[in-house]
């Protein structure tokens, strides 16, 4: 009755939404950056399940890898905690 693929996609999408809200709301910028990497990774799994593997490769390497590194390097030059 319930398609397991649809359930998986919904769980992933809800995780992405909750992680995005947490990344905005938390005062710890480092954990915010890490959580935004989680957003990118789970979004890439959603793309893979929706049969877009090329988008998934790009999203996994850029959204979960490069953006994370760039934000961490930017964070090194500022403070970790948001005022």
């Amino acid at each position: 009755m319930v398609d397991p693929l649809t359930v998986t996609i919904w769980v992933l999408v809800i995780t992405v939404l909750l992680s995005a809200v947490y990344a905005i709301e938390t005062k710890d910028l480092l954990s915010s950056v890490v959580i935004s990497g989680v957003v990118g990774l789970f979004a890439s799994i959603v793309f893979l399940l929706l049969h877009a593997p090329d988008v998934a490769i790009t999203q996994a390497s850029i959204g979960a890898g490069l953006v994370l590194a760039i934000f961490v390097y930017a964070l090194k030059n500022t403070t970790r905690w948001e005022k």
Partner: protein
Amino acid sequence: MRRAVSALLALLIFAYLFGVLLKAPIPGDYRDERYNYYSPLSGREANESVPDHYVERGEEETGSQNIVTSIVVLYRGFDTLGEVTVLFTAATGVAFLLSTQRSKGEKEKKKEPNFMASTGVGLVLPFILLVGAYIFVHGHLTPGGGFPGGAVIATGFVLMLVAYPRFQLREKKVSVVEAFSGLAFAVIGLISLIMGLTFLENYLPKGVAGTLLSAGIIPLIYIAIGFKVGSELSAIVSHMKGGEE
């Protein structure tokens, strides 16, 4: 107050976009308005709309097994040149803004590399580079292409920067690679102009779809894009880290 307003605005935009999505045509709905023809390739009725043309005729016209690639590189090749230019502009902007800031982390240079990180990265890095090269060389056969392949290669260099504090990207050499691969893309397009075709039209033999040496100029363009994207993204991260000493 400000938060409430922005949250409301975001919700409104979300509702609007969701409404547009609900009204979007479901694939198959638009068919009856168009002229139908019998496609000898798939042995069924197809119609003359542009998406159907790509799906039905793409492999026959370009020799590329991957339809997405045939659209990105040949049918919409000029757009891809623009995309590469956008990325190039972004990389140039980052380099311009951050290259004056020399790395001040003297103590960071002397920091010993983490044993676990350096060993792990040393083991994994060759495979990451191999996968990246595979993705852009096989862009016309398997999902992926120049942009994903270049991004994977850039991820490998980011791992190097993270694991080995003494590792530095040779920015001069990287920019030489970037410049020549961008030039190669443009020159491949200009050759087809010289041969009397339109810009970025295929002029090499198409070969048998599904083999490595097929699809004419698509593999060449994707190799150029892979090198260009990989070097640009690596250079961006390297500049963000503080640049070459």
